């Protein structure tokens, strides 16, 4: 059973456009929701993260919107650039000391110049 469901699987956006990636989760006990960016041949790198007591977090062109009642969160990339082309993963963490992360299936973003 997949704890975190991510969509779309792939996304093509024109340069300057907005990229939106969505995730849904089941476990209401999750206490931390990060987004990771992964370039080919590299490990995932933390991009931005949010805790469930906040509905939105913005860092530069990247924004997380969090809807606790719907158990959904999304990543918005404003003014998308070709350099943003990568695979993006959402994740959710359990609140206990195990710090177990469940990852979404990933979204391959291609920003066309």
């Amino acid at each position, binding site marked *: 059973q997949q704890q975190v469901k991510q969509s779309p699987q792939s996304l093509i956006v024109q340069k300057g456009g907005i990229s939106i990636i969505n995730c849904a989760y089941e476990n209401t006990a999750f206490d931390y929701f990060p987004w990771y960016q992964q370039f080919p041949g*590299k*490990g*995932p*790198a933390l991009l931005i993260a949010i805790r469930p007591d906040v509905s939105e977090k913005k860092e530069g062109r990247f924004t997380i919107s969090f809807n606790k009642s719907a158990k959904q969160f999304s990543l918005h990339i404003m003014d998308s650039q070709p350099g943003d082309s990568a695979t993006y*993963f959402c994740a959710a*963490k359990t609140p206990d000391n195990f710090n*177990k992360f469940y990852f979404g*299936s990933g979204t*391959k973003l291609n920003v066309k110049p």
Partner: protein
Amino acid sequence: DTAVSQTPKYLVTQMGNDKSIKCEQNLGHDTMYWYKQDSKKFLKIMFSYNNKELIINETVPNRFSPKSPDKAHLNLHINSLELGDSAVYFCASSLGGTSGEQFFGPGTRLTVL
């Protein structure tokens, strides 16, 4: 200065062989992880250690055995390698406790022939 490092980066071997992947973190983190990323990019946790103690052990074949000689190192030994073990293996670390930020290594691409 690399935060989470893994060796080797590439590993090509025959079925039935035994191999090890090493991981080291210099972040002073308490918790370390091994993830497997399959050909579809899906990231799945395998093991987690906290202060050298195994705390997460997912449904992984017994052929996989993690070892943590100290809290800065987490190695993965794989016995009797099978074709299905071909994947990219990522080591990661986090501070543990309520902190969520997780840092990934560059990955080890294992190819079993």
